[in-house]
């Protein structure tokens, strides 16, 4: 799959850049210092750079402070709270991983018995796969996290660790979220990609009208969810599909259609027609043109649409909460159910939210430039 290949290569490139960053920075500093020493560069220049960078850093830290703040709450043990009457603390006093352990729960791969009947004979051979215990939170000992993977190396020195009884249902929420988000992505992509291609490359009846409607509904679609909730809920209930993850996924996919179609269409507009023409002249039938040329060249757009649709399924709360029954709670609903009538168990709540968001954040971290590319409304320029 050349798409994955490309992504892999880009990731590797990114990783290399990140890895080389310190070396490069050192080189930069040495070069600058040398220039100053030779008297070729006024020392003010690097100072300006340092100053601006520091300023930007401060700004970024301020922006991210809320996230850091809840991380502290999460690391402050089960009693952690963002309401701290003892004033602002920049570091957790008694750092503890218990809330996270509580969220993650046991990571145990059950052992399976594989029975192979040997033909003719009456003998059956039984293979038992070992039970693979990555993490057993109820039996965990202080200083053992990371031992499985890192041998005797303690991964989080200084963090309190204790056995956790009754870990959260995170895994089941996680599974639910996955089974909502993945169909959402699949359905949405299969609706969006052909439409975006057609809107970008073909001329047909009602094309402009559809585009207009889509642009009109780009945002209305998503947000109206709440206003439409009553209608939606009634209809779903009457049809008896309200507690159905697939139905929810279809709904999410539907809401994602206008914006993402439009987004991808805009992105595809930026791909020079000559690639397509080259492929046609090379003898490629239309679908191969799309598969071999258009799609690989739309990577950034596709990645953006992928992330956006996935996010819809992954983080949407209000509709999921209304439609789904407890067994099917997705992560955000599960998260919200931690809140009881009066109080919020902040440490667990934060740990839950951060665990829940960290894959997304990782994706963002690496896909940032795709999203940037995918969201550069080049076609809007006019």
């Amino acid at each position: 799959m050349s798409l994955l290949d490309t992504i892999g290569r880009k990731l590797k490139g990114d990783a290399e850049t990140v890895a080389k960053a310190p070396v490069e920075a050192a080189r930069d500093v040495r070069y600058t210092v040398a220039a100053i020493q030779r008297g070729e560069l006024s020392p003010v220049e690097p100072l300006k750079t340092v100053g601006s960078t520091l300023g930007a850093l401060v700004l970024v830290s301020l922006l991210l402070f809320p996230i850091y703040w809840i991380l502290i709450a999460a690391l402050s043990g089960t009693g952690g709270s963002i309401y701290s009457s003892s004033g602002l603390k920049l570091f957790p006093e008694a750092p503890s991983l218990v809330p996270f352990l509580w969220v993650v729960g046991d990571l145990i791969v059950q052992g399976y018995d594989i029975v192979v009947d040997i033909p003719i004979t009456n003998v059956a051979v039984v293979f038992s796969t070992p039970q693979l215990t990555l993490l057993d939170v109820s039996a965990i000992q202080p200083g053992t996290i990371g031992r499985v993977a890192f041998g005797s190396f303690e991964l989080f020195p200084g963090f309190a660790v204790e056995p956790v009884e009754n870990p959260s249902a995170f895994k089941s929420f996680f599974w639910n979220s996955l089974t909502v988000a993945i169909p959402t992505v699949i359905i949405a992509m299969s609706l969006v990609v052909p439409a975006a291609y057609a809107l970008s490359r073909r001329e047909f009846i009602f094309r402009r009208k559809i585009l207009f409607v889509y642009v009109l509904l780009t945002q209305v679609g998503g947000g109206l969810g709440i206003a439409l909730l009553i209608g939606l809920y009634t209809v779903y209930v009457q049809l008896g599909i309200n507690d159905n993850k697939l139905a929810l996924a279809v709904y999410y996919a539907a809401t994602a259609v206008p914006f993402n179609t439009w987004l991808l269409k805009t992105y595809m507009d930026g791909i020079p027609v000559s690639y397509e023409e080259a492929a046609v002249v090379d003898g490629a039938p239309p679908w191969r043109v799309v598969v071999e040329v258009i799609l690989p060249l739309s990577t950034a757009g596709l990645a953006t649409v992928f992330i956006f649709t996935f996010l819809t399924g992954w983080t949407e709360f209000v509709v999921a909460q209304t439609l789904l029954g407890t067994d099917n709670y997705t992560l955000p609903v599960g998260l919200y159910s931690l809140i009881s009538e009066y109080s919020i168990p902040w440490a667990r709540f934060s740990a839950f939210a951060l665990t829940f968001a960290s894959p997304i954040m990782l994706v963002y971290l690496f896909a940032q430039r795709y999203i940037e590319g995918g969201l550069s409304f080049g076609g809007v320029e006019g």
Partner: protein
Amino acid sequence: MDTMATITLDSLRKEFDNGRIVAVDDLSVGVEDGEFITVVGPSGCGKSTTLRMVAGLESPTSGHIRIGDEDVTDQHARKRDVAMVFQNYALYPHKTVMENMAFGLRMSTDLSKEERRERVRETAQMMGIEDLLDDKPDELSGGQKQRVALGRAIVREPDVFLFDEPLSNLDAKLRTTMRTEIQRLQNEFGITSLYVTHDQEEAMTMGDRIVILKDGKLQQVGRPKDVYENPANEFVGGFVGSPSMNFLDVVVERDGDRVVLVADDGSFSYRLSKSFSAALRDATHEDELRIGIRPEDVFTATEGSNLIDSTVGVVEPIGSDNYLHLDIGPDFIARVASDIEPEIDETISITFDESDLHVFHPRTGETLLRDEPARRAAPASN
């Protein structure tokens, strides 16, 4: 190539915007098997449109296209056995050079993967790009990209080659090199080719014959030398050759059986020979004419008849020669040897041979004295 790959364009017409734009207008041209035809004309004259119709990327509004004996007018681009080289190369950025070159084979033949690679490797070797096969297009320099684009076309061994300004993105030096390279390849393979350019020098040097378009209409087809020497009209005369042909508006006066051409502002007069006068009288009865004289046919002289005095505006040295901008007419240039370096504002005398004179209809711009050989045969008879 075992088939006869002639190309016949038969009253081709292409309209855009519901007929508001006529890009190509009643164009009929026949291309012999193995011939290299260059298509030239100012921007927007319909060169690309013509080429794209041959490739099948546009369908003609009316008229027919035949490749060999087959009428391909309604055939899909991918069914036509043509290869095209695009202005921006249109190399698939996500594929390696190898994949780029093999793509056409993969689409239009059923060679095995190994065979394809073998074919690509052979071609690459011939083009001197075998070391680049694993690179992606954006790692290549302009010239290398150009070679890959050529290689991609060649490897398919098509019936017809189409080039749309393939060299216009290269710098002057590289352009000359690549030009020779394309000529070499064409000599080697003898594939029927249609080559679009807006650079008349390129058209002249490369084409077996040259097609000149203006506003979608055919102006002239012919061997470069013929076109240069016998332009069909003022436009062709001015378009072909660098620096451009000089044009002057003159009034026809009679002096016995001789004709005297007098500048409309009276600044000079030029007396024609008897035979030329007779020919001219046979050709037209207009009182006014437009004459053309090529810069290299203008020479400085100090004695003799038909001397024209003029002031030097600018002297442009191009090394091998000098261009003198003279005030005889608008943009009047004489190309003289590089050791003739008059001062600016100096007055010099120039003249030219009657045989080098081109005579055009003052309004339609048609060439009036077409049958040159007769006239040329007696250049000294004035």
